[in-house]
């Protein structure tokens, strides 16, 4: 159970969110040029050296992580044919619901996440309305909420499993 892919799924999502943050930083200040004449229609994005490097590295890392993630997912599905995870499923795969004890733990974690979202989203919306925040900061705010929800969920579930093994 400790090596159950569903337990570690939030960690994967947190890593992807962090990477998305780096990518957002890299793409934040590109020089864009849009040409639309009778002879030419083009859209150019010019990146500075550091931003370009960050974008290149984060995209590369993103695909590398995606490959490992899919391999782990495939391994999980092979080892747990009754609890397969579809990468395209709408229902969050981190839910542990194989019996009532697991459902109870999941419900407790989801309640905490819900409480967090209930506070965090209106707070972010208020900040965006009241303050002239740059686009990157708004993106980071959204990513922070997404990161926070996975962190809360992971820590809550882990807490129960940690107590259980002691």
């Amino acid at each position, binding site marked *: *159970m400790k090596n159950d892919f569903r337990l570690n799924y939030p960690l994967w999502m947190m890593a992807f969110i962090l990477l998305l943050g780096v990518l957002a930083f890299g793409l934040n200040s590109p020089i864009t040029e849009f040409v639309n004449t009778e002879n030419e229609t083009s859209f150019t994005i010019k990146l500075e050296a550091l931003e370009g490097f960050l974008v290149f590295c984060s995209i590369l890392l993103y695909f590398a992580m995606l490959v490992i993630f899919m391999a782990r997912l495939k391994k999980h599905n092979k080892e747990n044919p009754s609890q397969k995870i579809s990468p395209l499923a709408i229902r969050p795969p981190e839910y542990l619901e*194989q*019996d*009532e*004890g*697991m459902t*109870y*733990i999941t419900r407790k974690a989801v309640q905490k996440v819900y409480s967090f979202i209930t506070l965090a989203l209106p707070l972010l919306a208020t900040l965006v309305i009241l303050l002239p925040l740059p686009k990157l900061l708004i993106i980071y705010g959204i990513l922070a909420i997404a990161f926070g929800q996975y962190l809360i969920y992971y820590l809550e579930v882990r807490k*129960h*499993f940690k*107590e*259980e093994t002691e």
Partner: protein
Amino acid sequence: MLKNRVKELRARYGFTQSDLGKRVDVTRQTIAFIEKGEFSPSITLALKLADALETKVDDLFWLEEEEYNEK
């Protein structure tokens, strides 16, 4: 709070948490949560546990005296 003797009776029968879990069709973790009193099982699961441990439900589970008397 719901108290129980699951751990005591399980040990008496020489079952591991996994053994008992298999008998009542739940995971080992769920048995551990019940033993710690962290989670109160449904009536169905309580009946299955009592059956697996060859006892009555009210011998296996009971409400803590103080709380019970307050109500």
